């Protein structure tokens, strides 16, 4: 079989989707940990954020890899969705998808799009100001500014609300995505059943923590 055919193979595409997903899941774990610190200690949070913001390994190696991971996951998600839709040119007049599959598994594209939109907002809120601060305006580093910026962002109830809704959809996305990625890479045994349970907890706890953090800062200040 030709090498090009291999690259186009359905299974490799879904494996790539799964691997990028697993990568993003580890990133989420890190992100939620950092954010959670903001509830516990302003100083530690500032310190950690400053480290992340100025460590060259994170800034110039991990950040681009993350960006590539995110872009790949999204682009591939769109491509696959379009291809999968094309596999059924005439739709059913009556299709009872709820009878045999969860909402989250059937609507990854919807939860994914919400997360994409959220990322736009999130970049607008944090990433663009950060880049402007550091690289465009060239302002001198200030290791104490992060907590204040964070709290300020959650002042607006609409933004806080949008964040919370997005986190809930992130939960749905993870609910299917976590276990699904294991299945895609070919794991199906007692360990994967355990890991899937971990995944369900993860998809509840992590978004819940994000929501709690957002609401905490909204109401606490």
């Amino acid at each position, binding site marked *: 079989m030709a090498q090009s055919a291999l690259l186009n*193979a*359905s*299974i490799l595409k879904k494996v790539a989707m799964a691997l990028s997903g697993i990568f993003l899941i580890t990133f989420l774990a890190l992100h939620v940990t950092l954010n959670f610190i903001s509830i516990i200690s302003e100083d530690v949070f500032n310190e950690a954020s400053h480290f992340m913001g100025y460590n060259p390994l994170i800034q110039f190696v991990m950040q681009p890899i993350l960006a590539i991971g995110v872009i790949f996951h999204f682009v591939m998600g769109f491509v696959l969705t379009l291809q999968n839709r094309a596999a059924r040119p005439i739709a059913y*007049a009556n299709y009872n998808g709820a009878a045999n599959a969860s909402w989250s598994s059937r609507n990854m594209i919807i939860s994914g799009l919400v997360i994409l939109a959220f990322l736009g907002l999130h970049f607008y809120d944090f990433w663009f100001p950060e880049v402007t601060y550091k690289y465009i305006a060239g302002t001198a580093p200030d290791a104490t500014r992060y907590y204040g910026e964070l709290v300020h962002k959650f002042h607006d109830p609409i933004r806080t609300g949008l964040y919370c809704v997005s986190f809930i959809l992130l939960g749905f996305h993870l609910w299917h995505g976590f276990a699904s990625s294991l299945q*895609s890479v070919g794991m199906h045994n007692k360990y994967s059943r355990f890991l899937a349970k971990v995944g369900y907890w993860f998809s509840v706890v992590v978004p819940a923590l994000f929501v709690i953090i957002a609401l905490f800062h909204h109401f606490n200040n």
Partner: protein
Amino acid sequence: MKLTLKIWRQKNAQDKGGIVDYPIDGIEPDMSFLEMLDVLNEQLINKGEEPVAFDHDCREGICGMCSLFINGEAHGPDRGVTTCQLHMRMFKDGDTIFIEPFRAKAFPVIKDLVVDRSSFDRIQHAGGFISVNTSGNTIDANTIPVNKSDADKSFDAAACIGCGACVATCKNSSAMLFVGAKVSQYALLPQGKVEATERVLNMVHQMDLEGFGNCTNTGACEVECPKGISLENIARMNREYLSASLKG
């Protein structure tokens, strides 16, 4: 029982087709779904109309010929059955029942509710076999003991009847449960391991050529499969495929 049937009618592959309503009366709960359609067809013929074409053969749930997407589900609302084993006692008097063909680009409609599932055959031509000739002097069947658990799993995968419900029900029209079952049946047996690498590469390649969608692990196929083929088979295929493609 009195029912309203909403049935997909399509004269041939070129025709556009559409849903037509048929009221029907006098249906008994003990009838199978296909016997209910027999009654309808008898009435249509007597009225001088064309009967509804649908695939069926053994009517005991093993040949895999019957299909039908009934009220939004492959083989209808019951679990672990094919359409021919679905009985009218699953419905209530006065129900409206949608009856559509299995839909997928790889399953084009031939007429009414009859679809062409030869894409499944072509996938198997590509590798659904063990290359052994009939000679009469193959080794004794008991020469190679097979671990019972593997033999049982292989059997469970081989229980697939090739009906296509997995494709029909999958929101992506993916055939991975079918192909996964075929790959697993052989991959689990010592006899099948010899050409496992080639087999999985070739079968998946053919599956992709046929225009099936990709698997997003919704699990709908496993729920609707009349033979309860497990998703584990898809995972095994993924695994086999990954290791095969790494071997190149």
